[in-house]
């Protein structure tokens, strides 16, 4: 007896998930309730808990693979029952350079399913064949696709129309235009790997980010204003606070925390920047939910500090640390990744002196924080150096005009240059 583990479908619109981690391998024993693997959709990560006791008889995908929902991921059963194992054939075609497997998975057998015969019973062991629906077969022939190494999503290991379409899509996304024009077989494009090239399909998260960025730049009228402020005051302030930090039970405050705090106190005077623009409607928010851009190995995540305008500098600092940690160890939940009204993105630690951050629609603006460089003030002929931190504000010109955005930057700059005094307010 064995059971097939299918990639779950978490949500109507989810089409595939990426396996992020295997906790078991082929041959391992597993108990009901134990986590076998974890997988992610574009919104969150989930753990798959085993519904049975047994051992992992076979595994069909690796970490990092993008698996269509309801496709077999692995099978759990009794080691002893080899007679009912699904058949796994190594690919015999000499055309393929890839080391891929063809597999047919027989229906699960449960006690009492008397009438329905196990499909494999109808064929002798030597006659295992690729199961493909007529419609899919015709389509594969028309598109010149070799379907012998394809993922199947139909019952009993059957390849169906959408599997061919999916394969064609994957092949097309990696093929060059030239190949298409010469009418070469699509499968050969997939195998284009040599010493000086590596072809990878974009991961799920990457694809989502790509779509969002492209959409933002092509559907808004965004431009960036650059300025910088004298950071002397906040550097001094930070030093004092962090020296006394332990005694006063304060968190280690960073420059970014200070800037976040300053933004939360300033932006409500410029409500066009703390708003959503959707079609012809602009929604102004009474509170400031600050999105903080965090870099994690898979891509960009932007968790939200809700009602930042009501939180103290200490609170904001603590929350940022908390959110960043969650992002870095993949435990961030979807509810914390949405509903920001304004975003701050800091590339200062990477030496960026100015940049053009991309707005996250439907927000109307985003503030980029840049690195500290030494600039010079001129007063009565004397040049005095000072530490300057660049601020790059991208705003959507459809929602507001340059003057307003510039005024916000000016007020922000003033606040930051006299931070310790302004904190009193």
């Amino acid at each position, binding site marked *: 007896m064995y059971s097939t583990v299918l990639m779950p479908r978490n949500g*109507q619109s989810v089409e595939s998930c990426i396996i992020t981690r295997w906790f078991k391998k082929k041959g391992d024993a597993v108990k009901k309730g134990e986590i076998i693997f974890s997988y992610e959709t574009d919104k969150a990560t989930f753990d798959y808990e085993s519904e049975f006791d047994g051992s992992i008889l076979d595994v069909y995908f690796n970490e990092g693979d993008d698996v269509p929902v309801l496709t077999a991921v692995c099978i759990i059963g009794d080691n002893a029952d080899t007679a009912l194992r699904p058949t796994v054939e190594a690919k015999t075609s000499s055309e393929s350079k890839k080391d891929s497997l063809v597999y047919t998975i027989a229906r699960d057998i449960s006690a009492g399913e008397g009438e329905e015969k196990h499909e494999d019973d109808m064929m002798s062991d030597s006659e295992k064949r690729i199961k493909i*629906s*007529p*419609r*899919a*077969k*015709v389509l594969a022939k028309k598109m010149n696709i070799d379907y012998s190494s394809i993922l199947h999503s*139909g019952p009993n290991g059957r390849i*169906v*129309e959408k599997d061919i379409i999916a394969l064609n899509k994957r092949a097309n996304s990696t093929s060059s235009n030239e190949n298409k024009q010469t009418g070469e077989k699509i499968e050969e494009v997939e195998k284009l790997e040599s010493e000086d090239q590596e072809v990878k399909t974009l991961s799920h998260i990457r694809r989502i980010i790509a779509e969002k960025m492209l959409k933002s730049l092509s559907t808004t009228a965004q431009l960036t204003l650059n300025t910088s402020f004298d950071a002397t005051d906040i550097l001094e302030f930070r030093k004092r606070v962090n020296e006394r930090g332990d005694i006063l039970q304060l968190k280690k405050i960073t420059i970014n925390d200070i800037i976040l705090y300053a933004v939360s106190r300033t932006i409500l005077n410029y409500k066009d920047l703390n708003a959503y623009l959707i079609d012809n409607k602009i929604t102004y928010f009474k509170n400031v939910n600050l999105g903080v851009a965090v870099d994690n190995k898979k891509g960009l995540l932007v968790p939200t500090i809700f009602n930042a305008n009501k939180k103290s500098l200490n609170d904001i600092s603590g929350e940022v640390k908390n959110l960043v940690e969650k992002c870095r160890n993949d435990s961030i939940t979807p509810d914390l990744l949405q509903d920001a009204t304004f975003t701050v993105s800091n590339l200062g630690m990477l030496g960026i002196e100015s940049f053009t951050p991309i707005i996250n629609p439907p927000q109307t603006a985003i503030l980029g924080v840049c690195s500290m460089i030494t600039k010079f003030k001129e007063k009565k002929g004397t040049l005095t150096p000072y530490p300057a931190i660049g601020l790059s504000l991208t705003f959507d010109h459809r929602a507001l005009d340059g003057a307003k955005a510039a005024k916000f930057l000016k007020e922000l700059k003033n606040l930051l240059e006299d931070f310790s005094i302004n904190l009193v307010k």
Partner: protein
Amino acid sequence: MSVITYREAIRLALKEEMEKDDSTFIIGEDVGAFGGAMAVTKGLYDTFGPKRVVDTPISESAIIGAALGAALTGLKPIAEIMFIDFTGVCMDQIVNQIAKVKYMLGGQVKVPLVIRTQGGAGKGYAAQHSQSLEAWFCHIPGLKVVMPSTPRDARRLLKSAIRDQNPVLFIEHKVLYNEKGEVPEEEETFPLGKADVKRLGNDITITAHSRQVLNALKAADILFREKNIDCEVIDLMTISPIDEDTILKSVAKTGRLVTVEEGYENHGIGSEIVSRTVAKAFDYLDAEPIRVAFPNCPIPFSGPLEAAVLPDSKTIIDAVMKII
């Protein structure tokens, strides 16, 4: 447009055709003075009199035999068999005489005859009064079989059946008699041998006839709302000859087929549709075709038992989910 019942629509078609053509007449048990066992012919006896609405003794062979004789000698009879389950008694008249006489006499005679009857389960009338036996008659060359699902279809299909110059079996459904529907004021007909696509869709083709069309449409509605599955529902209208073209065109689009009927599953209407689809649209199929039908057992008398096996929208939904 007026809203009338299935029963009233049939009566309307009968009245319209009898008014148009003096050679039409109705013959059957209790059709005249009593107004019909299912009250379909109520009032027609008063309008047309005993020569055009003829009551008979309890003898199906006599009813059908007399109708055949009348048709051969120039009249246009509309014979009624009270329950399709009773056609066993007059099977020879229908299958060996009516269906074949024109052919056997080399086309020298005309048989412009309609047999009206009703079938279907759901009223607890048990094994001998609830069957759907259309498959018997679809098997015989020389007979057309027509089964309406709505008042409008009942009216326009019956008119076409009466005007047809060859034998037509018009099978009504006992549960549908009280169903209301819109029927246009102006007279209309619908060609025999053509199906009616009652719901357009892209994901799967569902064929049905008579009462099951209503279940299929209900299932399609639920499937669309809850699972975003878009079903194409085809009402066969004429069961024999079946409108292959419409069905095959639909399957070529969707790639998936579920047939629905109330007759027993074995050797039924669905079997015919599936075999033609596989033979002629094999390359368009993305999944195995499935039949939804009454199981191969006599229809229970017990209400809950009958309900448990009679196909309904849930049975259809389950079938769709198996192959979608």
